[in-house]
């Protein structure tokens, strides 16, 4: 009976310790959240849409397009994959296969063209954007989204509602060369964020394209890959 008050005192002490400790921890949790909410801005709506579109593109590997550059229209497939580089290392990159007029490969270093194919008189990056190359477009959109450089508008493509993402004019994000700037707009499905059309201006040249994502089946990928080694600088 004499120990009872001591036991009660110990229990009470432990309860006070736990109550104060837990409430302090909860207070720090709330304070931590409040400091962030008060001290940081929220990303803009256009950046968040851009991040979603970029995320979808970066997860995809294959796109099909009908592109028009300098009045010339052609169809193309663009595959994002691992390719052997000129230095014998493996590097990820984009391979455009034009219907009937050769292939272009960009996987680090100078862009390679199929032997005998006519090299373009515009900067090849324009072709990679308009072919809907998922990595090139995805990274470009991600870059603009992260710099809050996207303007979002309601639009229509082929009579259907679409979202237009106008990407701010920035330095060439790949080469970082001063003065080399590009301007890109991409129209996407407002529900799925799948790309519908692209307009781009790189250097002095511009063009537009209708694009859509394609499922990269093993057979299709195999057909596009063989034989990449024929590509030259």
């Amino acid at each position, binding site marked *: 009976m004499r120990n009872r008050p001591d036991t009660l005192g110990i229990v009470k002490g432990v309860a*006070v310790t736990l109550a104060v400790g837990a409430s*302090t921890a909860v207070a720090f949790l709330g304070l931590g*959240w409040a400091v962030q909410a008060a*001290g940081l801005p929220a990303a803009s709506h256009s950046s968040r849409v851009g991040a979603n579109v970029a995320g979808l593109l970066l997860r995809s590997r294959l796109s099909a397009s009908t592109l028009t550059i300098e009045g010339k229209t052609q169809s193309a497939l663009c595959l994002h994959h691992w390719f052997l580089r000129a230095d014998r290392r493996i590097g990820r990159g984009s391979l455009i296969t034009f219907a009937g007029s050769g292939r272009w490969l960009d996987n680090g270093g100078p862009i390679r063209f199929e032997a005998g194919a006519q090299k373009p008189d515009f900067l090849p990056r324009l072709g990679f954007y308009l072919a809907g190359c998922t990595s090139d477009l995805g990274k470009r959109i991600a870059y603009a989204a992260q710099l809050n450089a996207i303007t979002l508008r309601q639009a229509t493509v082929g009579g259907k509602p679409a979202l237009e993402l106008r990407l701010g004019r920035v330095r060439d994000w790949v080469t970082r060369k001063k003065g080399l700037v590009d301007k890109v707009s991409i129209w996407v499905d407002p529900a799925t964020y799948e790309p519908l059309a692209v307009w781009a201006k790189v250097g002095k040249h511009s063009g537009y394209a209708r694009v859509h994502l394609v499922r990269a089946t093993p057979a299709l990928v195999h057909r596009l890959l063989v034989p990449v080694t024929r590509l030259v600088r």
Partner: protein
Amino acid sequence: MTIELERETAAELRAAAPVVHVPEIAAPLDRVRPWLWLVGWWALGRVVTIATAMAVKPSIWTLSLWDGKWYRMVARFGYLLVPSRQSDPAFFPLYPIVLRGANTIGIPYEFAGPLISNLALVGTLAVFYLLTRDLKGEDFARRATIYVAIFPFGYVFSMTYPESLVLGLIAGSALAARRGRWWVAGLLAAAAALARPEGLFVALPLLGIAWGRRRSLDPQARGAALGAILAPAAALLAYPAYLKNVIHDPHAWQQAQQGWGRHFHALGIVKAIEHLPNAIAYDHWLVRDVVAVVLYLALLAVAARAGLPRMWILAGVVVVILPPFSGAFDSISRFGLLVPAVFWGLAVLGRDKRVDWGIRVLSVGLLIGAVATLPYVFP
């Protein structure tokens, strides 16, 4: 009689003399003088760092490179996760909040980072010195503090990186706990965890301090101590809670980490060691981080042998050993800057005067070399 008169006159003169003004002028100087050595070593480390950075490339951007870009991005535009790509949720929020605060009072973002980091380091050195003096006495504390100021990887303390701030918060939290100010300790520990994930492990030294004093604390003080120990974990949880609110994904930090090839896994360290030869063949700079791991662990062992508190050693080992579990050794040289026990290990070695000066000269030389690598490799 003459003597008596002279004594009275002297006493009157003394009483009338304006001696009271002398201490008023001398007092502030007296308060500053004991810290001049610290400011001097801080200035030496910073001048060496900034001058070398400017010599490599005459632009403040040299100190705002690499992660600095991401911290500025968070401060200006807020968090944004781009799945499958390097994104800014990989960077903890306190430092961008401080950058934004500096920008609000008119300091451009490009200057705010280096300015805050360099200035914060003065306070950090002072707090670190006071904590170390509490633990091991004056001479030891001076040596350890000097080593922090000129540590070869310490060029990060001058960059748009939160390390100078976080080391100060960690040391300040422990100092406050040692002085029984548990609320302050909790606040500083929470701030440290909100600035860098390594801040979480200040909970271990706090636990050690609280455990050592458990008998002298009343239940309320014990509760405050428990709160301080839990504070970094609570603050760390506040980050995903905030991310859930603004980008609807509480796992955005982990996802963003994957953009840098980091993914924590129980066998991650096996993968990191297994891939090390290939990783070094691809990026020779990685040798720097592997050497840093070995050096840090050796210094922690030295500190442990010298009887420094075990919880500090344990926290240090966790900070050094945990990153390879993400599958990579990258940047451990920088993460180790947040381990006070590393500098204590160095101070143990520096007991011998010749070794002490050897460490100082070598540190300054290596610091210059390390800054020169800045345009080529991230810290």
